[in-house]
């Protein structure tokens, strides 16, 4: 198999690129990157990183090549169940990805190598943990040289984490607009004054911003060598800074959704029983939980589904879920911060470098519990629009209908005019019956909410 096109996200690195053949992702190492790749494999760095599950494992294969004239090797990396992006992660996900990158850079220096880029797009999630996926990011470290990816690390990881720590826990969404990093002059202007009094923070952000604005140029300076110890000190200084960061704490709208009394325990218990019994009748591998909250319902199916994507627009809830997954060592749940009314767009060159959220979703089951009233009433999305979208992405749909007289719906309507004449059970059933057949249907105890299991027609 020859001359397969490079993946649209993989065009920057002359050392190689990703390509897809028969649904499998491969990485070609070009002749240009052969020395660095060989050093990665022979220096012991690859083995060291693999043994700690920090770098994606790969096997070398011979029978599939992409661009033959450049070809040195083809690698088949361990395949990832789901691709997500840093603007979809919660605070602690991004923090762990940052610390992983620093740990890898330190390990690389110990083996005479260095990371030539430090973007969070090089980190993905496998078995519940952050893993570095770009095998070709490593190059030989030349004595005395600085860390070439230092600026990128500061602008991608550190900048987002600081804004999430000092300002708002959703500010990593700025990475949609600044996928190559939020320029330090912008970050510096957005951070509070007190951050100038923190030495590490001052050096890595404010001083950097100042020097960039001033346009200081290395060429005018006498080059001084940076020893490996000095480079490690810089990494440690970044690590110390990042380790102390935590997301802005705030009681959000939804992180007490199931704790608060308006929805009783009996309701929750019955809903869990129904969800389990409805889904016990069908076979599925993948499940996506839309409006997952803290993942209460995703977790019910952790032993049944191979892959569970738990998406919610509340960053605090998703962060809690991530910390839970991490502490329990769960390996098949992917927590994501997604606003369904405005999910991640396709970005980058030709809008093809990073895929949109829905383009990455193809699942056996969609779970939409206590969700549709938010989409319908807060965002004016009709049942027909929801039914059409869901039907394109799933075989089965577990969905909860929340009637208009429900206290939660009344709460949503309390500050706006009720223009939702079509928000009725009949209209709901009619809209969804265009695309789905109802397999099961039952009222959830202590409420008039109804749980449906549907199958795509």
């Amino acid at each position: 198999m020859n001359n397969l096109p490079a993946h649209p996200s993989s065009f920057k690195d002359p050392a190689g690129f990703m390509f897809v053949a028969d649904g499998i992702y491969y990485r070609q190492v070009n002749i240009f990157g052969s020395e660095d790749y060989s050093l990665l494999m022979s220096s012991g760095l690859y083995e060291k990183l693999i043994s700690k599950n920090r770098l994606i494992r790969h096997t070398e294969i011979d029978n599939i090549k992409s661009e033959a004239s450049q070809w040195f090797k083809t690698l088949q990396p361990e395949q990832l169940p789901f691709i997500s992006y840093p603007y979809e992660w919660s605070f602690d996900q991004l923090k762990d990805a940052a610390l992983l990158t620093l740990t890898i850079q330190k390990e690389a220096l110990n083996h005479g190598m260095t990371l030539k880029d430090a973007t969070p797009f090089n980190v993905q999630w496998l078995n519940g943990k952050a893993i570095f996926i770009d095998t070709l990011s490593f190059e030989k470290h030349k004595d005395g040289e600085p860390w070439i990816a230092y600026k990128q690390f500061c602008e991608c990881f550190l900048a987002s984490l600081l804004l999430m720590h000092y300002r708002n826990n959703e500010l990593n969404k700025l990475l949609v607009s600044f996928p190559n990093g939020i320029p330090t002059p912008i970050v510096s202007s957005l951070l509070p004054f007190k951050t100038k009094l923190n030495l590490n923070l001052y050096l890595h952000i404010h001083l950097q911003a100042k020097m960039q604005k001033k346009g200081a140029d290395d060429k005018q300076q006498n080059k001084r060598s940076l020893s490996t110890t000095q480079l490690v000190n810089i990494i440690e200084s970044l690590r110390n800074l990042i380790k102390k960061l935590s997301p802005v704490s705030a009681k959000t709208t939804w992180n007490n959704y199931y704790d608060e009394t308006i929805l009783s325990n009996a309701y929750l218990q019955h809903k869990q029983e129904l969800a389990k019994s409805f889904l016990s009748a069908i076979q599925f591998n993948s499940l996506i939980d839309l409006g997952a909250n803290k993942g209460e319902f995703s977790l019910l199916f952790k032993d049944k589904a191979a892959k569970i994507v738990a998406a919610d627009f509340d960053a605090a809830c998703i962060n809690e879920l991530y910390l839970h997954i991490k502490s329990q060592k769960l390996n098949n749940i992917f927590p994501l911060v997604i606003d369904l009314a405005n999910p991640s767009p396709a970005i980058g060159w030709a809008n093809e470098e990073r895929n949109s959220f829905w383009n990455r979703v193809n699942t056996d089951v969609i779970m939409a519990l206590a969700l549709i009233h938010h989409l319908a009433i807060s965002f004016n999305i009709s049942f027909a629009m929801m039914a059409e979208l869901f039907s394109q992405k799933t075989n089965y749909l577990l969905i909860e209908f929340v009637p208009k007289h429900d206290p939660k719906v009344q709460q949503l309507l309390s500050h706006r005019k009720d223009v939702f004449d079509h928000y009725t059970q009949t209209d709901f059933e009619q809209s969804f019956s265009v695309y789905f057949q109802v397999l099961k249907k039952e009222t959830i105890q202590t409420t008039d909410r109804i749980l449906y299991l549907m199958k795509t027609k």
Partner: protein
Amino acid sequence: MKIILLYVDPGSTSYLLQVIIAAIVGVAVYFKTIWWRIKSFFYKGDKKETSTEDNTDE
């Protein structure tokens, strides 16, 4: 060739900045080490917290 190798923009100021940071952080590490020595002299039973290896991604 240099241009291709530097396909990630290191920033025109990055080298100088890293030299400055390395110098300042180096001084901080130096004094920290002295401080730990003094501390461990008086509190011989206490363990020195030298481990900087990050375990959050273990």
